[in-house]
């Protein structure tokens, strides 16, 4: 039974967002563009949901960075994807 809970917890954690994008006041930013990147490849862009969250799994080749942008906000430096999850990124106007 305990192992079932363990598996359930693992499944739930693997489908919850790993990245949150917020503004300087901490409000979620919807539809921010998130591009997972390795040193040499770009993955297809993803967009944040209404909670500013997006699910990005580690992949092969290894994802090293996230490029996060939204029109009207300043470019954010590339985000190190190897930080503990979830990662919260603040976009500035």
């Amino acid at each position, binding site marked *: 039974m305990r192992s079932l809970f363990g598996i359930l917890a693992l499944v739930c954690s693997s489908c919850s967002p790993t990245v949150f994008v917020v503004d300087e006041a901490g409000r979620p930013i919807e539809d921010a563009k998130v591009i997972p990147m390795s040193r040499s490849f770009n993955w297809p862009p993803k967009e944040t949901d209404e909670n500013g969250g997006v699910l990005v799994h580690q992949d092969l080749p290894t994802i090293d960075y996230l490029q996060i942008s939204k029109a009207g906000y300043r470019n954010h430096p*590339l985000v190190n994807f190897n930080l503990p999850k979830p990662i919260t990124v603040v976009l500035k106007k």
Partner: protein
Amino acid sequence: MSDITYLPGKEPHEKEHRLIFRNVDRKGWNPKIKTYLAEGGYEMAMKALKMKPQEVIDEVKASGLRGRGGAGFPTGIKWGFIPPNNTKPVYLICNCDESEPGTFKDRYIAHQDPHQLIEGMVISAYAVGAHVAYIYIREEFPEAAIILEKAIAEAKKNGFLGKDIQGSGFDLEIYVHRGAAAYICGEETGLIESLEGKRPYPRIKPPYFPAAIGLYMAPTIVNNVESLCHVVHILRMGGEEYIKLGTPRNSGTRMSVFQAMFLRGTVAVPITFQELLYDMCGGPKDGRTLKAVIPGGSSSKILRCNETFQIGRGDDAEEMTFWQLPLDFDTLAAAGSMAGSGGVIVMDDTRRMSWVLNNITHFYAHESCGQCTPCREGSTWMKKVSDRIEDGKATPTDVQVLEDIAYQIDGKTVCAFGEASAWPVEAMIDKFRDELVGETSDDNDTRSAERIAQEQFLSSVPQ
């Protein structure tokens, strides 16, 4: 050609016209002279030795052959530059340094059809009056060097090299010289310095045009492996027929090698990018689109696959999409790039351009010979700035800085390496500025660790 069969999986595409690569990956073929002679090998050398040297030069001139080493200079015209009143020995050098990133065509010839090259060299040496010729082969081709040495020994044993070749009265010795493992050894004057046993610092032109002042300060013709092989086919077909394989200013076939999608062949110019990348190479992987192509080795300017170009001038100007561009010298030059060494590098939409840029700048920073300041310093700075962009530590101004550095190198150096290192950077920024700037941020701190420490120290000192 129909009776020729190739190894499984190595069959040419129906659109390929194999001239120089006829025997590459061929079933039952080996690099021995016996195999080569069984198919009429060295017959063109014998034909040439019965002609007058000037007649051979005229045939090559008539063929419109343009050098396949990168610059596309007309071979027959180059041969004609040897001073008419010359009293010094003339040398022929085969440039088999093949170190342009993305290019690996000459290696196939050296490995699989060395006698085609030797025959081309016999004809060319006879035409220009050289009795000593060198094959300068890159250090990283050790096996090819051994194969070529064996082939030279065979040719000598069979009377196609050495004294009084086949009773013609013409003498020729060919020596294989292993290169110094540097890209700059492929630049013809750097190559000559290296062959003389020195550090391969390119010589300034003028006055050191090899055809006038080359090896040991004597007239020297430097030609690429593929260019020399074409000479055999020009003699067989005649210059006029050879032109028909391509167009008058872009005659013959052209060997292209591909990275990303793989194909080796001699493609009769003018084949278009559409035919080449989709019909012959099968297009991108499922779900992906092609993003950019570097058409002639890393020194050529990158082209976007969604670009349109104005080709030609005035009333003859024609609008062409990238896909309609034929891969010939003139069209690619009109599109702002070059056919270069024939190494086509293809990138799909997953490729990160900052990484491509960084890869290229690392290569040139490592390979600059260091003789002139704009190239030595500029290539290193370009590497440092592109490191920052790729690491996500750059500011938008860095992209501008990088572009400025490239334009400071361009046209201000001893040899064409300067342009070769600057052009890819200029073009990459021109074509993919948004993508590069998108990976930068004003919030990044580009100060070095030393600068930060210095500023901290200075601010801690009471005023």
